[in-house]
């Protein structure tokens, strides 16, 4: 065997990819060729270096969390906000394409239960919003800051109120997308928990509350005054219900319209 052949084959030998005959040939060559043997020792040392655990990048918790439990099918991307152009733009394009591809599948499999469809999507969106940098577009505890922020970003005016007095302080707002349409998301806190309240206009008038549960998340949705609301959180169902009542209760804080 010549050094030229050995230079390629010693890698395959190091990687345990050679058959017995080739292995014997390369070992023989190295026995008689100090320079190839030295090379081999270097690459073996390199391999040991690369085995160092810190070079292996494990998935961050946020990513792991969003895939650790069985999840409802995630289709709608978060509203594309160019976080880091141009890569973010490419991401947006990629996601948009993915939505187009994904949508028919979604509708064929989930058309059956319209209500649970919204709940599933809202829960997916809630989980996504928990990822770093995804939660809030506007950070404010002041409803008079949050509400105007939505102006011009949506084709409707969302209802915004602070429920700090009831133990659910408003902390911010976000544009989001559910089922292919833009929706307003208000973010409230309950102790250390986050509640996302999604809303968008619908044609139907009043629909009574319904509750969906999924792996520790609760979603309550209702329609009032041609506006559909979905509240999602990991707080208990009774606490989420309390939140919904507080939001629906006009007498507590004058509702901004």
């Amino acid at each position, binding site marked *: 065997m010549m050094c030229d052949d050995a230079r390629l084959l010693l*890698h395959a030998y190091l990687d345990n990819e050679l058959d017995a005959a080739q292995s014997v040939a390369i070992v023989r060559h190295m026995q008689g060729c*100090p320079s190839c043997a030295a090379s081999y020792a270097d690459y073996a040392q*390199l391999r040991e270096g690369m085995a160092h655990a810190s070079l292996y*990048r494990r998935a961050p918790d946020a*990513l792991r969390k969003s895939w650790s439990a069985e999840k409802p*099918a995630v289709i709608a991307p978060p509203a594309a906000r160019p976080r880091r152009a141009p890569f973010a*733009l490419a991401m947006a394009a*990629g996601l948009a394409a993915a939505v187009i591809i994904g949508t028919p599948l979604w509708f064929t499999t989930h058309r059956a239960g319209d209500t649970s469809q919204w709940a599933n999507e809202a829960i997916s969106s809630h989980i996504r919003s928990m990822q770093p940098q995804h939660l809030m577009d506007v950070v404010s505890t002041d409803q008079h800051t949050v509400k105007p922020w939505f102006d011009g970003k949506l084709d409707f005016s969302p209802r915004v109120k602070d429920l700090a007095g009831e133990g659910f302080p408003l902390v911010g707002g976000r544009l989001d997308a559910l089922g292919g349409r833009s929706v307003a998301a208000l973010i409230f806190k309950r102790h250390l928990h986050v509640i996302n309240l999604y809303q968008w206009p619908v044609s139907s008038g009043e629909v009574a509350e319904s509750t969906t549960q999924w792996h520790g998340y609760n979603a309550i949705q209702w329609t009032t005054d041609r506006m559909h609301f979905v509240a999602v959180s990991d707080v208990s169902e009774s606490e989420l219900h309390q939140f919904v009542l507080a939001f629906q209760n006009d007498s507590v804080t004058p509702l901004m319209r």
Partner: protein
Amino acid sequence: MPATISNNASFEAIVVPYLDAAYNLARWLSRDDADAQDIAQEAMLRAFRYFGSFRGGDARVWLLAIVRNTFYSLRAKAADAMHETFDDDTHALIDEQPSPEARALMSVDIQSLQVALESLPHPLREVIVLRELEECSYKEIASITGQKIGTVMSRLARARERLKAELSSSSTEARRHDVR
């Protein structure tokens, strides 16, 4: 929705365990934490969506191929300026005979190894990451990257030679630094 539920359950059992592998590859290809997270997330969504077309076999290889495609397709959209063509001929094996001196100068510390890895061109970086960090066989790498086994082998050799040269020169510089 029973079909969907069982689909979810098996996706969780078959694909999700390779989330770390997906992120690791995405991170080494993109060299950026936030981009890697976006790529891995997008790749997982694609995998979830196309899980119906997964016909058994090695789910890790299947997922890693999706991660790689996701990275390249997003990157191609990101900027033409970032395009990097790889010509196997211009990256021919470095023609130097390893001398005992050169060997003594190679220092494998994690910091410089990481820098050296990140400075490799993508086609070389992906094979070495798949081989050394994911411990894929040549056959698996060939299947993930859609290349011939011979190409995988020669690119691996090139990747290692480049790393070795990089590590040797950086340790030479360090020595020069010490002298001054």
